[in-house]
């Protein structure tokens, strides 16, 4: 059994920001004509200076709090110097902790579950570079590359963990929880292409660590780790040593490959950014932010359990889908019946949509709104419709967007509570299902079959309790 140690370096864009980290260009660079979202600052034109986005400091502080980091009273920015065509200034403005603490979060502890804790080395705020687009076939086929600086200067939060993961499953679990946190704090829409990226360090049996770069979605991380563990096991299996090296993840071939050796030998010549003076956050900054910041996923989970009396299972489903949880709470504001509403949302409601919407923002385009669900639950609780009817109505309003009452009125599907009408149905079923009636007289469990038949006879509208009572009394006749 070999020991695996994995550490992560995650980059999450602060997609919540309207502007870039150091200028007023749009934070959302997606779907824009190349090089149309640029100015003298993010393009690093001579003489331009960075102006720090205060909101970015708040968002990165919230992430630091969420991951159990200490937030220092003062933060600073550093320059990381290296030449790369997507980097307009040929240095990146970032943070650095070697010559004293400068970054927004340090020494964090994050509870992965009851037993496992992940240490966070640091959280820092930095700028994203632009993007290089190679012509088809890559650099080897044609000698040209195009550069789009629309992304250059977008605010990134870098989260660096200690090598505390022992396998890909823990990593996946962590990344899932991290995504939820990013979403709950409204920091990053992790579903946007390229909004989260991950570098991974993998070492085995205390050997050299291998850094894997260029993993452009959390989903690919697990695959890259699995590949790398297999690769390293094979190398050790042949009694060879693992080199300390940087590898890239090829998400088409699903393999890691060795980076050009030059890329590893960087001396970044860090030094304090002279154009951004030390930022004093002040002693109340964190305390104030804690009061203002949105609820974290685990806090919300506890609240759902305790305040709304939801089961762990139901709470979990809701928390894991932030937008559904928000939908749930919007519905509660209209009609406070947490258990009933939650049950409908995590079962019937979810089953109607889950097929074709893999995590997308499906709720936005839905015709059914919290008003619909609130009304539906009121109808059920007012004993106006049966649960069976409720399911049918939900299907209908998903398509039409009508309010449940309208559907009930127009399709005449109110619950039947009139004993005479139900008794007629019971008579009819007893006439048609003679053998089942005999069964039921011996075996009480067969009664459910008869009830089903009665419900069917009334198109699901009969009050089940009344129907049951009438069936029982007729059986006893």
């Amino acid at each position, binding site marked *: 059994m070999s020991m695996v140690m994995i550490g992560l370096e995650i980059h999450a864009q602060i997609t919540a920001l309207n502007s870039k980290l150091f200028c007023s260009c749009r934070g959302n660079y997606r779907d824009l004509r190349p090089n149309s979202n640029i100015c003298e600052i993010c393009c690093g034109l*001579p*003489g331009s200076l960075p102006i720090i986005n205060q909101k970015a400091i708040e968002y990165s502080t919230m992430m630091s709090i969420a991951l159990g980091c200490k937030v220092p009273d003062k933060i600073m920015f550093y320059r990381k110097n290296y030449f790369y065509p997507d980097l307009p200034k040929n240095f990146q403005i970032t943070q650095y902790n070697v010559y004293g603490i400068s970054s927004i979060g340090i020494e964090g502890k994050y509870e992965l579950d009851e037993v496992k804790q992940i240490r966070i080395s640091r959280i820092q705020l930095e700028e994203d570079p632009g993007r290089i687009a190679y012509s088809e076939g890559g650099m080897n086929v044609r000698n040209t590359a195009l550069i789009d600086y629309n992304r250059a200067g977008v605010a990134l939060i870098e989260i660096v963990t200690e090598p505390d993961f022992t396998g890909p499953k823990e990593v996946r679990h962590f990344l899932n929880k991290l995504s939820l946190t990013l979403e709950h704090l409204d920091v990053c829409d992790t579903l946007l292409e390229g909004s989260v990226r991950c570098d991974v360090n993998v070492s085995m049996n205390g050997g050299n660590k291998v850094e894997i770069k260029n993993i452009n979605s959390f989903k690919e991380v697990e695959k890259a780790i699995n590949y790398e563990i297999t690769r390293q096991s094979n190398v050790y299996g042949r009694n060879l040593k693992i080199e300390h090296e940087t590898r890239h993840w090829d998400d088409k071939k699903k393999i890691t490959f060795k980076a050009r050796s030059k890329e590893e030998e960087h001396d970044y010549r860090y030094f304090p950014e002279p154009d951004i*003076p030390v930022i004093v956050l002040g002693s109340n900054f964190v305390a104030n932010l804690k009061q203002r910041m949105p609820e974290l996923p685990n806090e919300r989970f506890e609240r759902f359990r305790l305040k709304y009396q939801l089961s762990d299972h139901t709470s979990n489903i809701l928390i894991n889908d932030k937008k559904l949880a928000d939908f749930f709470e919007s519905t509660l504001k209209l009609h406070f019946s947490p258990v009933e509403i939650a049950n409908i949302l995590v079962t019937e409601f979810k089953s109607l949509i889950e097929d074709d919407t893999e995590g997308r923002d499906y709720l936005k385009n839905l015709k059914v709104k919290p008003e619909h669900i609130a009304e539906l639950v009121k109808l059920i609780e007012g004993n106006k419709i049966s649960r069976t009817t409720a399911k049918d109505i939900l299907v209908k309003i998903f398509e039409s967007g009508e309010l449940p009452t309208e559907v009930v009125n127009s399709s005449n599907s109110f619950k039947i509570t009139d004993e005479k009408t139900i008794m007629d149905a019971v008579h009819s079923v007893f006439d048609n299902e003679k053998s089942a009636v005999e069964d039921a007289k011996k075996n009480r469990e067969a009664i459910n079959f008869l009830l089903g038949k009665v419900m069917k006879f009334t198109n699901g509208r009969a009050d089940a309790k009344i129907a049951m009572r009438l069936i029982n009394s007729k059986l006893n006749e």
Partner: protein
Amino acid sequence: MTRLDELLAYEVVEGLTEGQFTAEDYVTTILKRIEKVEPKVHSFITLDTDGALSSAKIIDKKLKEKEAIGQLAGVIVGIKDNISTQGIRTTCASKILENYVPTYDATVIKSLKESGAILLGKLNLDEFGMGSTTEYSRYQPTRNPWNLDCVPGGSSGGSGAAVAAGECTIALGSDTGGSIRCPSSFCSVIGLKPTYGRVSRYGLISYANSLEQIGPICRSVRDLVIMLNIISGKDTFDNTSMPSNPISIPKRLNKLNVGIIKELITGSDQEVTKSVYFASEKFKEIGCPCEEVSIKNLHYALPSYYTLASAEASSNLARYDNLRYGFDYSIGEYKWDTYFSNVRENFGEEVKRRILIGSYVLSSGYYGKYYLKARRLRSLLRLELLELFKKYDLLIGPTMPILPFKFGEKIDDPIKMYLVDINTVIANLAGIPAISLPIGFSNGLPIGLQLMAAPFGEQKLIDASYELEKIINIPRRPNSI
């Protein structure tokens, strides 16, 4: 009557307002002057004649229609060519920016335009501001209007020479380690390096961000005050800028305590020393007691300065890779491994030297040994100076330890060249304001007096300079051209 091309800035505004001449008359006169002296002096890298004439016409139209005009209306301002001007080529006297035309105006340029100033062109400097003679300009050196065989000082040599030669009314320079004060001293004009943070650096093409400031170069203290007030102020585009009180022309001089920096006297040429003692007599005449003081940490200043300035420069200049803007480069191939080094061959020798030094002192293993130590020495020096300013209102000494020298005299020995900055780098390291004031001549070569004050103590510098200017009679116009 004074010739039109000898007018001071405030006289130009008066003359225009009173209708003595038009802005177009004035611009035309200055253009004639340029035509005459520029072939000898070489102050300009780029002239915008058409732009200046059309700005003049706009001002004349406003005057005719009795519209309000700005504080610097009609005044011709020359701009050091490391300050960004929208639509006008800005080269930093470097070949690497030969074809670079900024898309935006520096904040100071916006302020000047709003005040009605006429921008006539871009003035010469040592490449990226690195040098003390303009000999490192990648175009051609500027000559000292007082003696064409001598250097005008640097790096704002074009600004100093143009103001002295009457090629513009006033000029903007920038000062990283003395680049405004050195040419002001060598060209016998007045130059101020403001307190770090008083003037926005937005649009000033960085050489060493933590040290430099934009500042005015003028022929009178009154002009300098007008100009300084226009360009000062907190700018949201510069995190390091700060709000400040406007400066005024003093009604009368309050007593100021003056310290003469001993080390700067003993380290200077005899002729220069003599002038400083002459100045101290004049200070006593205007009721300001002088005594000698010592700066213990002074010998740390130059090493600290060159370490920090080079470190910052090595990073600031990294962006010049000619991928987005720059110069005409037909390399034929863009090979990953060689492109950056090939293209950056186009820097001049001195710039390359400082990039190398800067990269070295920042590299891992050396950061603590050089860069960090230089920063500590810088704060030591600053603290010592702040302590001295509790006792003295002004610290004075020669701006330059030597007289203007001949071309080629020091260019072969970088260390010799660096040593002439010893008096001026102090103010940049400490972030304090410093002015260079013409104090006399020796063999026809100008000598400047440097006055330093506590942070944001510009008013005291102006108070003293205004009085000294009144009682020390200095010829304004060089006869050699």
